[in-house]
């Protein structure tokens, strides 16, 4: 996922006039020229790599889609071994987006709360250890999350599912037939746990950058600690938190093994989030790849291309949001 660049990119510094002059003069020196060449080369290399990936995906995808007997976008089936082959991404797109949205709804508020707790409420002695534990959470391999999900989380979800069915079953979204809890909601909860550390860490860094003056000014005006957070910290950190969330979303969209282990995939869209079924792009590729024929792989690559496009759209949207908010945030103060 190339979402990293959103978070890592520092606000472009406006070089002052004398600096500019120095830079212009320095560009003639060999060291500067080499550095210019290196950085420009890296930039171009990145573009070439992205173009190569896009080109490869598009080429193989076109090969597969031209043979597809169904509609690639609307067919509820994935059957590349038969003649003529039928496959479509509707269920995968739905599942990928729904599971990621559930993960975001759960993870973002919790992450922001943890980050605020660590920067503004936690006793100094606790900050280090808690941050350390959250970092550890990010280091756990996703297949381990998958195993934990399948062996611990799924059996323990039945109670929650029963409760949701009793009180919210009438909505249709939370009705439950009593199957194993290998559903989109379980996957969303698991993904939320997986993306929690990255959102928390970046948010914490952002909240830490809030200028001391802002907070002290708010306190001087008689604000309580909550009001300081509401009026100084959160507005300042908003674009950073959005970036952090997009990083998390990127991971949730592309998560493979944990989803493949926990979900009970099928090619239907279920109105209920509690019924087992559905699927995601990455999970489908992982489970179909090993037995797929040459053509089957092309079809999987075509689905990968759609995920690629969705990720690009999400990144673009995130950039747009951040760009719009830039002037209101404290980053330029």
């Amino acid at each position, binding site marked *: 996922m190339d979402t990293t660049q959103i978070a890592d990119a520092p606000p472009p510094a406006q070089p002052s006039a004398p600096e500019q002059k120095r830079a212009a003069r320095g560009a003639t020196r060999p060291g500067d020229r080499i550095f210019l060449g290196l950085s420009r080369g890296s930039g171009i290399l990145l573009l070439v790599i992205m173009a190569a990936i896009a080109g490869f995906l598009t080429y193989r995808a076109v090969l597969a889609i031209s043979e597809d007997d169904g509609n690639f976008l609307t067919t509820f089936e994935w059957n590349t071994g*038969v003649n003529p082959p039928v496959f479509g991404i509707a269920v995968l797109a739905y599942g990928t987006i729904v599971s990621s949205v559930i993960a975001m709804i759960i993870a973002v508020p919790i992450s922001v709360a943890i980050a605020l707790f660590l920067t503004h409420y936690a006793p100094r002695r606790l900050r280090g250890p808690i941050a350390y534990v959250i970092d550890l959470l990010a280091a756990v391999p996703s297949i381990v999350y998958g195993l934990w999900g*399948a062996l611990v989380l799924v059996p323990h979800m039945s109670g929650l599912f029963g409760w949701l069915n009793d009180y919210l079953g009438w909505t249709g979204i939370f009705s439950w037939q009593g199957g*194993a809890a*290998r559903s989109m909601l379980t996957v969303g909860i698991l993904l939320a746990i997986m993306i929690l550390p990255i959102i928390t860490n970046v948010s914490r860094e952002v909240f830490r950058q809030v200028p001391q003056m802002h907070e002290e000014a708010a306190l001087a005006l008689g604000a309580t600690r909550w009001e300081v957070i509401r009026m100084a910290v959160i507005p300042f950190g908003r674009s950073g938190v959005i970036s952090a969330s997009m990083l998390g979303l990127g991971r949730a969209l592309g998560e493979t093994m944990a989803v493949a282990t926990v979900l009970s995939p099928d090619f239907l869209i279920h109105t209920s989030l509690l019924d087992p079924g559905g699927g995601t792009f990455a999970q489908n590729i992982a489970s*179909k790849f*090993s*037995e*797929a024929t040459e053509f089957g792989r092309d079809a999987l690559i075509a689905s990968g291309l759609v995920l690629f496009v969705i990720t690009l759209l999400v990144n673009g949207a995130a950039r747009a949001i951040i760009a719009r908010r830039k002037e209101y945030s404290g980053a330029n103060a």
Partner: protein
Amino acid sequence: MKLQRMNRRALALGALAVSGALALTACGSDETGGNGNGGGSSNAAPSNVKCDDASGQVLADGSSAQKNAVDAWVKQFSAACKVEINYKAGGSGAGVTAFTQGQVPWAGSDSALKPEEVAASKKICKGGQGIDLPMVGGPIAVGYNVPGVDNLVLDAPTIAKIFDSKITNWNDPAIAKLNPDAKLPNLKIQAFHRSDESGTTDNFTKYLIATAKKDFPYEGGKAWQAKGGQSAPQSSGVAAQVKQTSGAIGYFELSYAKDGIKTVAIDTGAGKPVEATVDNATKAIADAKIVGTGKDLSLDLNYATKAEGAYPMVLVTYEIVCDKGNKADTLPAVKAFLRYAASEDGQKVLAENDYAPMPDDIIAKVRTTVESLS
């Protein structure tokens, strides 16, 4: 100077100690190995393996269904011959692709080569083509988890309806009719199929299509097609779900039906319902016809068999090699290995690992074909 000499002496002493220890442990492990296998067929196996001038390293890829069988063979075989065999079990599709691209001299597959794959193999096999050698049989067990029900009997139409979500409760009259003595609970059926593409699914649905076309109106193939039900990856995943879910039923290879998973006996129309065992699977494979032409020995299984004690829900995995034009550097090793696999000892190893040995007349043809590989 002095220091150097001391170093050298120390080195020599160390080397002596290490080699001595090695020799000792080698003796020791030899002995325990002999004792452990004492009396078993595996003890005799290495002496029966004909190595010829086989040596070197062989890479192979293919069906994960026969992975445990190949591993058991390799263990015996490489004890006798100086051949290192590396079977990757990347799946039948991957295996056939690797074979037709010339990356491996031998592949394992759950289904026989398709015509276009045979055509592709002609590029690799100089003057010959890829052929299928049926070598490993496997009963596909239908495991279930229904509290209080021990000897469940089902027939093909009922299995088809259960897996197609037409029968959804364990106390359905269709099941009750087949199990007059059982106390069937009022419990929702949770049918599990494979979420990944698989030769097991292919053979399971082939069976249902051949015997209950009306109740299973799908084309079949490696991907599961019926709607509804739940799924899990790999045979191990399905078995694990059946084990932990009350009311579950699922299909997988017999070797996964351990740890207390009960399996369904099939009412084939024979006198008695047939249990899923390796012997019963071999009996069903004996009813198969060889449909391959030339040296190809691909089988057409008779799923509708009513022979006494023949368990019809079986899959056969093939070893795929070139009949002519095998690469000179791997041919002796591949030939010696397949000769061992098809031998009496090799087939006996199968039964010890929950696979079904090939029936006598089929394996006899496989042996002749293996000898003629060039």
